[in-house]
């Protein structure tokens, strides 16, 4: 099985924790504890009053990076995007991937809906169809989210022999699948927010 090696994104280094892709409830709790512990260590308010300006600036700057990293890494979507972006940057041969495909039934429904929206805007039946499409989109995104989540839980990151420091690796097949799922998920989310902004569909 071929492995893709990539540099561990800076956010992990700012956070000061080993690389992880998925967060279990326990590791999420550990992440929160880590944040509090590190904040207590770095927060300028806990520095001695006579600390130098340089020391203050140093603490302030490290804590700012830590807080920004924490937000990126605690959120599953932004964490995956960050890692995928790094993998692509470090492995240009991966290319940009295929155009995300949405399920055929959903695509058909979308085109029909667009047609009737053009013909009978404001029609009760059209609006009902819009609502129903919107909710199937929601169900589909949720399904994808679960799949992505399960896949990332399954990822076992390896640091094979001879790899550069601060690098890790993931199986190629796995990365391709993860990226496809995440692209589809993003596409659906965009479609949904597009609909919401155009037609004021209730959430």
């Amino acid at each position, binding site marked *: 099985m071929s492995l893709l090696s990539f540099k561990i994104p800076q956010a992990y280094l700012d956070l000061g924790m080993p690389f992880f892709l998925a967060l279990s409830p326990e590791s999420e709790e550990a992440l929160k504890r880590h944040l509090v512990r590190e904040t207590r260590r770095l927060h300028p*308010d806990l520095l001695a*009053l006579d600390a130098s300006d340089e020391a203050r600036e140093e603490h302030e*700057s490290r804590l*700012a990076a830590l*807080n920004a990293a924490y*937000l990126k890494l605690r959120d599953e979507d932004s964490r995956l995007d960050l890692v995928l972006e790094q993998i692509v940057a470090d492995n240009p041969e991966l290319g940009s991937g295929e155009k995300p495909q949405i399920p055929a039934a959903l695509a058909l429904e979308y085109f029909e809906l667009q047609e009737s929206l053009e013909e009978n805007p404001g029609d009760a039946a059209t609006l009902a169809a819009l609502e129903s499409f919107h909710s199937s989109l929601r169900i589909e995104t949720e399904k994808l989210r679960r799949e992505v989540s399960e896949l990332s839980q399954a990822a076992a990151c390896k640091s094979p022999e001879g790899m550069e420091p601060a690098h890790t690796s993931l199986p190629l097949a796995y990365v391709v699948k993860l990226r496809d799922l995440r692209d589809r998920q993003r596409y659906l989310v965009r479609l949904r927010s597009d609909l919401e902004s155009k037609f004021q569909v209730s959430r």
Partner: protein
Amino acid sequence: MAIQIELGGTSPQKKAQTPAPQGSVLGIDLGTTNSLVSVVRDGKASVLFPSHERPLLPSVVSMSSRGEIQNVGDAAVLERASRPEHVLFSVKRLMGRSLKDLQAEIHEIPYALEDDELGAQVRIRVGETRISPVEVSAEILKTLKTRAEKVLGEPSNRAVITVPAYFDDAQRSATKAAGRLAGLQVLRVINEPTAAALAYGWSNERPGTVAIFDLGGGTFDISVLRIEENTYQVLSTAGDTHLGGDDLDRHLAGWILSKVPETHPLRKLGSSQLQAHLLVVAEKAKKELSALDHAVVHLEGFEVRVTRAEAESLWRPTLERALECCRSAIRDARLEVSQVNDVLLVGGSTRVPLVKKLVAEFFGRTPNDTLNPDEVVSLGAALQGEILSGRGEDRLLMDVVPLSLGLETMGGAVTKLIHRNSGLPTEAREVFTNHSPEQNAFDLHIVQGERELAKDGRSLARFRLRGLAAAPAGFHRIEVLFRIDSNGILNVRAKDLRSGIQQEIEVRPSFGITDEELMSMLEVAFEKAEEDMAQRQLVDLKVEASTVIRAAENVFKISGHKVEATTAAEFKARLVDLKNASHANSWKQLRDALDALEECGHELAELQVNEAISQALKDKDPAKV
């Protein structure tokens, strides 16, 4: 060539000289309706107020018809009925706001407003005078400072001031400016609900997740905090800067008015007077309804009866908006409502039974109303002052960014750089490149708020990165670092990734008062303060002089003939000098005259005392002396 950052509409911050710290750090709750000041003594926070007054100082300032500050607090409230156009209240709603910002509510504000020259901060028109909300707030802060100094018996010039969590940068900066104008070094501006949480957890560590529901006179805030071993971590905060007890009063006032017949004499009053009057009776009825199931409003020969149920149906839609904020705060904290261990009620308006009921329903638990909802915020501010002056015994407040920060992009959309509820300090980086060889600058527009379009958000700063050398499209790589420091101040640094050259600037919002204006206002305030003080001392000394003159004339009549003629003549001359000086207006001259009389009057005074004693001895049985 080095890149340069150029700010539009704002100026880089000049490091202001910080005066030597004096006394304890004051914790100030500058409220819409009431304000108060606290301080920590022997590890315990308490509210400071003169013994004959109330702890709460109404945030009300009255002005004389000549446009001078007349009264602050209760005395100003008394003037509200007779001369409403000279009495300023709820100015907190106007802090850091322009006419455009206030459009939606302008009809609710009973005094005339106009924009300043920059169109960034409204000014209030009182007769011929214009006064800014910052200046009005500074008067309230000055009064609080004086109150504290009186009780403490020593000067105090440092403070932590609280603001609603949802205040944006302009509102926070306006608050800081008011502090400086009042002669205070504002160590930090902290969020009201956070301050309340600090006071709640300080003496009685209760680890867990707490929601602070803060409904004040004019603003609503909800914050969710995790409290554990000396750490108070804000998880999320949300709110509405235009939701509070005042709104309840207004709804009730409108309803009362609808019951007043067209022929009633009240209808003949001018609209601002009528509104002021109705608001007063509505507020009274609201308070009564907290304890009773109905209230009767008396309006000159006419009575309106309002039941609690009627009032509650008027108030419910407003309060539902508060619950909507709660929902969003819980979501941002990534929690379920059931994970909240305690709900703290803060702000005077949480005394309204419907508020308690709705909060209990929403959180599925009886809210905690054991703390004094009026005082807890100011106590917390004093405790944060304790932390900042190094006496916090290792306690730490982890605060968050209240509003997202974004960059305006093509087409007026906003890209979020820093999301609301990010821990403080925090930062974001963005790399920019040139789109054509001719492009030698970038314009950046930083917007605050959650809205998608730049025009709906609050413009924080515009600046320009310039000085880029001509190069093929996509050649330049300029990394811009946006950092919000632990004081909530935005720093922008731009770095040319190709050359490594770095530029830095501190961004300050243009809330209508530039640093220069503030400095000149400060100078005027200090001059005025000296003038006021001198005037006051002169008056005091004249009172003293008149007492001394009366006593001296008396002494001279009785004992003048018993001393040597030269002494008597000298005394008489000095007395005449004093009389003259007491009619003039020089403090120095009067003081000198008093001292001179006192000096030559020793002999006379002794004589008189001795005589008084011997007289007393004559009258009384010597055995008893």
